[in-house]
């Protein structure tokens, strides 16, 4: 069935189990969820919601999911702290008849629905952009990764390696872990930079572009093409450089409001919509022409975000079913 399912979910309760709340991306993600859930509740689409964050502790998240089962939620959306370590708890939830939607994480338990980006295309888009600027000339690439042992980081890195294979003239000359955090990216990049040759492109995972740029500037080096992520400071720096020197790059990133996608996917499943086990969410991409418009929508220091209302999510689901191109996140007017 295409379109928005309208089955009665007014008595249903949806919970959000979040692995970590300690950065701005996650804070916005929680707020986005709360906003969507509050509106849905006001509109009589659900009966209630809850958010529980564990403090970067997978075991704590696992037992919190057990408790959400006990509290009788109808659906649980999960941003998993581990791709596999929650499998036991998720299975238990499924067995109790609860709809589980894991998002922005590669949860492997087959009973769960997964809402995620395509990280292969994330990496490919980053390198394709660099290629569009540098062509096939030999170039040195620095990769800034997330956190060692993390699933998102692992999958995106795999994507990078695949994409690099398509650009044999590019050489990865360095790799650091920036933990999606400006300060850490800055420190790590500053440390290796003196020993690196000229860098032409920097691959990022979002949240780390600003720190990387700071490091290049402090070292008195020319800014390479740093793929920017989803933070306002990354965009602002890009704009400043663009205005001053004509610097060009582009931004690619996860939207925190992916929590809204997961929320509506869960709601739609409860409402009776046929949903595939994997729902791909579009990445948010910002090109030079849209930069100013996007910058205006983001609070200073904040995270670039977009609204995912119920009908847009239904469209995304349908596009996934039809294997059609996903609707892009529209640039603000």
């Amino acid at each position, binding site marked *: 069935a295409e379109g928005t399912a309208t089955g009665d979910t007014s008595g249903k309760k949806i919970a959000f189990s979040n692995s970590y709340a300690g950065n701005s991306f996650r804070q916005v993600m929680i707020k986005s969820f709360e906003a969507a859930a509050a509106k849905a509740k006001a509109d009589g689409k659900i009966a209630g919601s809850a958010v529980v964050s564990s403090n970067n502790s997978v075991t704590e998240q696992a*037992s919190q999911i057990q408790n959400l089962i006990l509290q009788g939620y109808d659906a649980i959306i999960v941003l998993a702290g581990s791709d596999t370590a929650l499998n036991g708890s998720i299975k238990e939830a499924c067995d109790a008849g609860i709809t589980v939607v894991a998002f922005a994480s590669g949860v492997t338990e087959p009973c769960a629905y997964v809402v995620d980006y395509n990280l292969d295309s994330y990496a490919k888009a980053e390198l394709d952009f660099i290629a569009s600027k540098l062509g096939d000339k030999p170039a040195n690439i620095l990769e800034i990764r997330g956190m060692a*042992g993390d699933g998102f980081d692992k999958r995106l890195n795999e994507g990078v390696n695949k994409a690099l294979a398509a650009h044999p003239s590019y050489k990865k000359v360095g790799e650091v872990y920036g933990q999606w955090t400006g300060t850490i990216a800055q420190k790590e990049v500053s440390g290796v930079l003196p020993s690196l040759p000229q860098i032409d492109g920097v691959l990022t995972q979002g949240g780390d572009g600003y720190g990387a740029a700071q490091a290049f500037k402090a070292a008195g080096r020319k800014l390479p093409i740093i793929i920017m992520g989803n933070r306002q400071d990354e965009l602002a720096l890009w704009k400043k450089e663009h205005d001053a020197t004509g610097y060009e790059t582009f931004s690619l990133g996860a939207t925190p409001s992916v929590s809204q996608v997961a929320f509506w996917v869960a709601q739609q499943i409860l409402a009776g919509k046929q949903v595939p086990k994997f729902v791909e969410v579009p990445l948010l991409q910002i090109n030079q022409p849209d930069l100013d418009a996007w910058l205006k929508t983001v609070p200073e220091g904040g995270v670039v975000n977009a609204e995912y209302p119920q009908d847009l999510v239904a469209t995304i689901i349908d596009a996934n079913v039809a294997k059609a191109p996903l609707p892009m996140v529209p640039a603000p007017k």
Partner: protein
Amino acid sequence: MADTALQRRPRLTSALGSALQIGLPAATLIAMLAVIFWIRPSAMSYFGFTLLFKFAVPLMFAALAQMLVIMLGDIDLSIGSFVGFVTCVAALYLDEAPLLALVILAASIAVYAGVGLLIHVRQLPSIIVTLGMSFIWLGAAVTLMPGPGGTAPRWLVAFMSWKPPFVPLPVLIALLTALIGHLVISRSSYGAVLRGAGANPRAVERAGWSVRTIRCAVYAAAGALACLAGLTLTGLTTSGDPNVAPAYTLLGVGAVILGGGAFTGGIVSPVGTVIGALTLALAGSLLSFLQVPPTWQIGAQGAILFLVLAGRILFSEHRS
């Protein structure tokens, strides 16, 4: 003589003191359960107990491992990442090459003993040596398994989801470990030597014991208990993950302290530690029942920690 007889405080006080030591965390645990059952009466069931305490099982073992180390006056900051390492080994090899898995686990227990030896012989601060070890275990785990994955052997998963008659599995395991721990550490003749070695190693050495051997053995035992923590955790999560349990390090310390232990060495209670672990495991979930606003959740964790531990003021007075 009168001059000493009069100094004697009634033995009752002492007994009351140690009863209180166990009683307080137990009371805290019951109070927290009461809150949960009040919010959600259906939790008061075989099923409810199982769900509430399942994840307390590995924490319990990790806390007991920490307790052994604290008993010697040391602290182990590596337990969390060691448990993560064990889950990786278990999820990678236990099913397919069980012998290899056992060899690796045995070797890592030997490494634990070696750490004890190093700390003893060079008189090093355990806090920094085990901090270094935490990186080593994490590195070993990430090298084995760059991201979460693997599969737990079926028998392990089956065991952790086994439903024994009448008593839920986590409760059963808690009772058994508390009992065994009590017999070994608090009652047995060797337990007395171990606790003595923690409080006054010189005195124990002067009595002809080798504190070096004791330290190695106790560290090895801690390693073995941490292996149990890793194995039971693998059974629950059905997989391995290098970053699964860093929180166990400090939660374990908290459980030992909550259970009446002290950092001065020689003062630990296995029963108290088990109750402490159950309490802290529950404290994490209490939040989800209380519907605390997201930005205050972590603060509420801190507040719960204070509340749970504040009871200590009541009886710590007479100890100082």
